[in-house]
C-alpha cells in the first residue's frame, strides 16, 4: 500500500479522536508509518457486529419480558458476555449459569448468589430481581 492510499474513512465509531497506525511505502519505496482515521470495510464489519449485538440484546429483553428468560440473560448479553465468561465471574460452572437463565430457576436463587451476579453487572440485587417485570 502506498502512503497516499492509506484510507482515511472516518466514522462515528472511534469518537473521532482515535487513529490507527499503518505501515505504507512512500515515493522512494521505503516503509513509513502513516496515521489513519479508519477504513470503510472495517467500519462496515464493525457496524455489522454491533448491529448483531443490539439485535440479540433486544430479542433477549423481549424474552425476559415474556417470561421466557431470566434477567441474567439480558444483562449477560448487554455486557457482551457468554455463559462461559459470566461463569468465570460468579465462580460457577457454565451449565449452572445456563440453568440460571431459566426464569423458574432464577426465582429460587439465594440473594447471596444474586448479589454476585448484580455485582458483575454493576446493578443492585433489587434491580436484577425487578428487571423486566
Amino acid at each position, binding site marked *: *500500500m502506498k502512503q497516499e492510499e492509506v484510507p482515511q474513512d472516518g466514522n462515528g*465509531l*472511534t*469518537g473521532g*479522536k*482515535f*487513529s*490507527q*497506525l*499503518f*505501515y*505504507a*511505502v512512500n515515493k522512494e*519505496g*521505503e*516503509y513509513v*508509518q502513516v*496515521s*489513519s482515521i479508519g*477504513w*470503510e*470495510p*472495517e467500519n*462496515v*464489519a*464493525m457496524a*455489522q*457486529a*454491533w448491529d*448483531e449485538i443490539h439485535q440479540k440484546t433486544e430479542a433477549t429483553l423481549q424474552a425476559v419480558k415474556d417470561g421466557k428468560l431470566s434477567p441474567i440473560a439480558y444483562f449477560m448479553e448487554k455486557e*457482551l*458476555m*457468554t455463559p*462461559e*465468561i*459470566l*461463569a*468465570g*465471574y460468579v465462580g460457577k460452572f457454565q451449565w449452572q449459569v445456563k440453568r440460571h437463565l431459566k426464569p423458574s430457576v432464577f426465582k429460587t436463587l439465594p440473594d447471596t448468589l444474586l448479589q454476585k451476579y448484580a455485582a458483575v453487572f454493576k446493578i443492585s440485587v433489587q434491580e436484577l430481581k425487578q428487571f423486566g417485570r
Partner: protein
Amino acid sequence: MSNIDFRHSQSAHCESGVVSSLFRHHGLEISEPMAFGIGAGIFFGHLPFVKVNGVPGTTYRIFPGAIFNKASQRLGVTVRSESFRNVERAMEALDEKIAQGTPVGLLSSVYYLPYFPPAYRFHFNAHNLVVYGKSEEGNYLVSDPIMDVATEIDPESLAQARFAKGFPEPKGKMYYPVSMPDSVSWETPIKQGIEQACHYMLKIPVPLFGVKGMRFLAKRIQRYPEKVGERKAGLFLGNVIRMQEEIGTGGAGFRFMYAAFLQEAALKLNKPELSRLGAELTSVGDLWRNFAFQAGRVCKSRAGDTGSYQELGEMMIQCSAAEEVLFRKLAQVKF
C-alpha cells in the same frame, strides 16, 4: 510516587509495540516491524472450532505472547513474567515495580479499558499495554501501543482489565526485562525469525494453518451462503474482515508490517534480496486489501448470492498462492 521517563510511541499492533517500547526504554533500539519479524509474528490460522459468539475464528498473526517470548529469547533479553491469583497482590507487585523505576508490560482485557472508543471494547483478553507510573490522583500512567498518546487509567478499571474472565484469562500477568544484552548481533535473530515464519506459513502439517489455512478458509467462504444461510454468511465474513483489519486483535496489515521488517533487515544485513521480497510482500498485502474491500461491499449490500462469495473465495486463493510463492523464496535466502 516517582514517574519513569518513558517514551510513548504508537504502534500498529499491541504486542510488537510493547516489545519495541520496553526494549527501547532499556537501551535496545528496535523498531516495531523488527520486533514483529524477529518474533515471527506473521501467521495465518482459521479455527472453525474456536467460535466467538458462534462465529468461527480467524487469525492473521501468531498466538499471544509468542512475539514477546521469541524476540526476547533471540535477542538475548532476560524477561521476568509473573501471574497472580490475588488482585491486591497483583496491584501491589505492579506498584513495587513502578516505584523501582521499571515500566511494566501488562496483559489485559480491552473491555475494561475506559480510554478505548466504546465501539472497540470487546471481551478480548490478550491486549498488551505498558504502565510506567502513577499520577498524583492515584491513576496509572499508561502507554497503550494502540493509542496516539500516553493516557491514564483508574486503579479499579486496571484491576478489572487485568483479572478479566473468559478465554484466555490474563491472571494479572505482568512482565518486564531484567537484563539486556551488552551488544546485539542482528543477523542470527533475524535469520531465526525468518526461518520460523517460513515454517509456520508453509510446513505445519495441519490444513488450518499457514498458506494451506487460507485455501481452507477460501473454500469455506465459497460455501457459506448454502451452508449457513445468508445472514450468518455475512456475519462470518464480517469477522474475517475484522480480524484482518481491527486494532488489538488483527490490526493494520500484518503483511505490510512484515514487509517493513524485510526492508529494514535488508539494510541491517546488507542483503538487498530481502528488500525485493519485501516489495513483493507489499503486493500480497494489497491483494488482501482488495479482498477486504470486496468483502466489505458484500457485507454492506447484504448480497447473499453465491456468486459474490465464489469471487471472494477466488481472491483469497490468489492471496494464498502469492504468499506461498513469497515464503518459498524467503525460505531459500542464504544467510
